[in-house]
């Protein structure tokens, strides 16, 4: 799907701008152009915002790094970043001028007059999607955490009275993690999954609550969520 999108925009770019862009994976070019847009290190005078993939960067001219971006320009920043996510693994930098005109740098090239949603004739860089090897490593790591959660879920070490989570929740049935957040009547407030896990540890299991970032809590959550793969999210369902 990404391939069609890229080739689609490539085609559009060719037609619209009449520029034929050669795919370039020269990272030093990219860096140079990025630097040019961002400004030299000692002239860091503009506010920079990264996207969550750490590959898309928007530089907002006229806003100092310690200042908040005004709402309309912030919305534009967000629109730009979200739009650029269609170029999944690319490193792209956009500079938004004080006149709202935008300049894009990617793969060592500069493109003027970009608007979010508009054509951007960037060709995918080569380092692409996760490899099979990477995915299997990541899965092994997840399985390890889920297995630890499985072990804790079925053990009597979580509680203080020998009751295990699995006694009332075989295969994590009736845990319904996909329905959180919801008002949890036992807590008399809106709870997240881990709030309810802690409540169960404290009450039916007569144990000690876990800190939210306790590795045991993370493992339990991982196990519970893994049992409910494929269930649609349904926050607030009772």
């Amino acid at each position, binding site marked *: 799907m990404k391939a069609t999108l890229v080739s689609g925009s490539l085609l559009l770019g060719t037609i619209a701008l009449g520029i034929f862009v050669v795919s370039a994976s020269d990272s030093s070019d990219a860096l140079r152009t990025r630097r040019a847009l961002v400004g030299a290190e000692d002239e860091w005078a503009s506010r920079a915002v990264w996207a969550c993939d750490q590959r898309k960067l928007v530089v907002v001219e006229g806003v100092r790094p310690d200042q908040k971006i005004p709402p309309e320009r912030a919305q534009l920043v967000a629109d730009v970043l979200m739009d650029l996510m269609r170029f999944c693994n690319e490193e792209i930098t956009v500079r938004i001028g004080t006149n709202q005109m935008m300049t894009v740098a990617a793969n060592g090239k500069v493109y003027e007059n970009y608007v979010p949603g508009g054509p951007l004739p960037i060709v995918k860089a080569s380092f692409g999607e996760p490899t099979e090897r990477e995915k299997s490593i990541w899965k092994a790591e997840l399985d390890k955490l889920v297995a630890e959660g499985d072990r804790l879920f*079925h053990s009597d070490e979580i509680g203080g*009275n*020998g009751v295990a989570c699995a006694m*009332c929740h075989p295969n994590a*049935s*009736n845990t319904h993690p996909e329905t959180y957040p919801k008002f949890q009547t036992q807590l008399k407030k809106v709870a997240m999954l881990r709030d309810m896990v802690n409540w169960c540890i404290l009450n*039916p299991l007569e144990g000690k609550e876990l800190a939210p970032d306790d590795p045991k809590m993370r493992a339990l959550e991982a196990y519970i969520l893994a049992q409910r793969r494929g269930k649609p999210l349904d926050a607030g369902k009772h």
Partner: protein
Amino acid sequence: MYRNDMTRKQIERAFAERSAADQRLLQSLQNCDRRHFLRTSLKFAGMAAAASLVPSHAFQLVNVAHAAEGADPGVAFRFAYVSDSHLYARGMTHRFARAAVKAVEDVNALDPQPDFVLFGGDLAQLGRADELAFGQQILKDLKAPVRMMVGEHDWYLDLGEKWKEMFGPDHYSFDHKGIHFVVLNSVVEKDFWTAKGYTPEQRMAIVSGLDDSRQSSFEVGEPQRAWLKQDLAKIDKKTPIIVFSHSPLYKLYKPWNFWTDDAEQVQAILKPFQTVSVIHGHTHQLLTNRIGNIQFHGLLSTAWPWPYAPEGLPAYTVQMFRPDPFNQFDGCGDGSVDVLAKGRVNKHYNFWSRNPRQVTALELAGKSLPGGGYQGPSY
């Protein structure tokens, strides 16, 4: 109209000669839609309770669609049950111990006392001698005689050695007031431990996990089936049979061992008999089924409730709503079974923290499913 010194029989006769108001109410129970029925039946139950029709702990909600229709079969006798106590030997303040004692107190408060008390299996949690002894000590307080049945939690630490020593054979039969009772060990598992070199404790831990798939499925097994055939050979086909079994004796949900591998074969042995009821534990919930001429009733646990299985729930079961974990007694309880004159049973669920429920032979035998075959969402 009703006096405290009346015997149960006198009360029932007095009730049969109903007042005009009662008659009108019963009339309104017929041919009404479900919602209206529930509202009026609650009123009816309140009146029945108020009229001290039923003794002590059993203020029973009448769950039958047509109370006035059909002859009241008449109750021949009653037995009570306590099941699935899953005791740890951690003293009387442990929540499972409190619950087991509560059940014993409930049964002892019954007036008149039941003919006997069935213990439905899983007395201990990890099959340990101290747990079994603790359970035996608690059950000793029961005034009525006790019939024991074994569950997998009692068995797999030492393959039943301690159980047999303390409570006798794991399968046996007896006759009582014209009914032939059979008690089975239906939690036999094919050996899964020797090849893997599991210790007894490991074996017990695996079996004690409902969702632990390393264990085998439950079965009655060929030796016991042979024994059953031979035991039933001398029984007249018209004699009512009541089977006590820990697992359901039908195939509900294999991953949780709500299952008996040779269920069809066991049912085939029972099929020739006119009236067969199976009372089983293990499932810790209100569970009802009917296969051919056999009616199946599950027992409540005193220790904790199970959720309903994701699939395979019998259409005859009207689910209990999921329990509140704040309340350690919710979804748990004990109860009793009325054995009717013709040998069928009415099953009373004495839920703690909820209104009691009754599942009657009449509604199970009916052609249409009770409540239109209600099936709530499995949770």
